[in-house]
């Protein structure tokens, strides 16, 4: 049985005049023990989805279940067994690290000792500061504490809503390593993030935009679905270069990507054609490289194709 099932979930906010359709029929399944990512820009509906699955909001339509329990009918039972870490740091700022953890352990009818194994790797990193108040911690430490608190009752499904937003690159990397080790303990993890590069760290990812899921696949599957040729271009005047690349008849799309511009080519065009085009436009030293698409290119393509 899948750990999480969402079936045609809809949710809207506001009244008659300005209705915002936050979720427009979301369906997906998450298997037991899977690390499932939901990737999407701000406003895609990720938080609404998480709140429905954690029984905090009622869906307007559709149904969903967590651990086989219905999110509307069996909300009490679900609240006993899931772990939830909201997007915003939501612990008690005037309690110390230890007090916060102890408090959440008691609330869930357990003790720190009982499940210490589960949080050991994470908690050990902040344990030296256990007498410090949560409000005085750095972003990365807050996030570790929040994760420890969400894990302390050994949840069967863990919901992490944008856990890496506002956290530095090193802490982000560490955080994903922690998630992978948690996965080994058999916990199903749903994690949402606006960062596309984090998608490749999940078992499967759902790409979400404007309240809809564009695709659900493994990162490899997503990349494999990208069939068109792709080149990376670099030159001195990057801004002008981007304009010119977008004018190129063989370019389906061109966008900045790190220190390069990526150009998605229409079928039949290749890297040398781009180089020729650039030479005609007096880019003598332009570096053109045919590359393999990574997951971000795939998402950009998916999101753009949805818009047009």
């Amino acid at each position: 049985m899948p750990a999480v099932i969402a079936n045609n979930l809809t949710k809207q906010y506001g009244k008659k005049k300005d209705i915002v359709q936050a979720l427009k029929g979301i369906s997906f399944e998450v298997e037991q023990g899977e690390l499932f990512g939901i990737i999407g820009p701000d406003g895609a509906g990720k938080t609404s989805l998480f709140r429905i699955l954690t029984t905090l909001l009622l869906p307007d339509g559709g149904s969903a279940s967590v651990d086989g329990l219905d999110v509307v009918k069996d909300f009490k039972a679900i609240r006993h067994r899931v772990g939830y870490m909201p997007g915003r740091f939501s612990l008690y700022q005037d309690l110390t690290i230890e007090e916060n953890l102890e408090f959440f352990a008691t609330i869930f009818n357990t003790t720190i000792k009982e499940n210490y194994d589960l949080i050991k790797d994470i908690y050990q990193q902040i344990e030296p500061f256990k007498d410090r108040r949560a409000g005085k911690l750095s972003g990365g430490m807050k996030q570790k504490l929040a994760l420890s608190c969400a894990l302390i009752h050994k949840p069967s499904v863990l919901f992490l809503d944008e856990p890496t937003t506002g956290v530095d690159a090193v802490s982000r990397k560490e955080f994903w390593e922690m998630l992978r080790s948690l996965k080994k303990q058999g916990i199903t993890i749903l994690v949402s993030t606006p960062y596309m590069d984090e998608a490749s760290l999940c078992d499967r990812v759902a790409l979400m935009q404007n309240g809809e899921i564009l695709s659900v696949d493994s990162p490899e599957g997503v990349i494999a679905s990208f069939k068109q040729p792709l080149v990376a271009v670099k030159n001195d005047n990057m801004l002008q270069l981007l304009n010119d690349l977008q004018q190129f008849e063989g370019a389906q799309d061109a966008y900045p990507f790190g220190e390069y511009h990526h150009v998605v080519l229409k079928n039949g065009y290749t890297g040398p054609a781009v180089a020729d085009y650039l030479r005609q436009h007096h880019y003598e030293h332009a570096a053109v490289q045919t590359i393999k698409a990574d997951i971000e290119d795939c998402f950009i393509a998916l999101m753009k194709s949805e818009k047009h």
Partner: protein
Amino acid sequence: MKQFISFVKKEFHHIWRDKRTLFILLGMPIMQILIFGFALTNEVKNSQIAIFDQSNDAATQALRTELDASRYFDVVQDIHSYPEIEAAFKKGAIKLAVIFPENFANDLDHFNTAQVQLIADASDPNVANTLTNYATSIILDYQDRITNNRRLPYTIKAEMRMLYNPQLKGAYSFVPGVMAMVLMLVCTLMTAITIVREKELGTMEIMLVSPMRPFKIVAAKAVPYLLLSIVNITSILLLSVFVLDVPINGSLLLLIFEGILFTLTCLAFGLLISTKTDSQQTAMFIALTGMFLPTIMLSGFMFPIENMPLPLRVISNIVPAKWFYYIVKEVMIKGLGIGAVWKETLILTGMLLFLLVLSIRNFKIRLA
């Protein structure tokens, strides 16, 4: 139960670590009692008066001594002409001028009647009224003494006795009032704010996705404020007995029981506010306008309800503080027992249950 205790402990941590708020919560009743007791008093003491004595005889001398000796007046100035009176009032140097005409003692002795003029500064009408009353009664006392050995035909004397508060001390009415005000402020305002704060900080979101029952969350939040209120009731009572000399004539136990009943009513109201608001500011605003103002205006503590127009008198009935104020006055000042206040106690209990049921029904088990 362990959950509950842990939650209460957490709540105490919040209160204890916010030293400034704690200081206000515990210091406020003391400050208010002291302010009302010594600064904001409508009793008149040691008012500065001037005397324009155009007669300067035995009788006026005696009256002057009487006035000066009373604790209401201090003679600070002797005036020698009418323009000086006006000048003294304009300078604000005096509150009252006493003017004896020429031949005061002579008139009194030979014509059996003499006149004295009192001029008061009525820019504060209440004070002016009180001062002239005091002065008149001192003069009448003097007259009584000199007529003692003669029989006057047809005299009716009104003998007054002020029951329960013979000295007409203001403290007798403001101690119950301040008690109502402080409990209201601590309980209603603080409960509303602490629950809404959890919503604002997002911790409520996590609390909801936990096995903790909403009712327990709310009850756990109320416990520390109930205890804090008992501390406040105690400090108010101690101050009023030992500093303001207001005795507790009735049963202390009954008084504390009623205090707890009122505290719970306030807590329930704060709870109701918190279920309806999402920001601390709104909660504070509603608590202040919805509870604090009516407590001051319509409880009878500042303004007598009997003198209000009918609509306000009707509205005053739904202000819990009105009933509490009445109960405290009856029990503490008049020394009456539960037999005298059972009706008011029942009304408060009814209000408590009503507010409690309403707020529990309104408590959201989800975010929206």
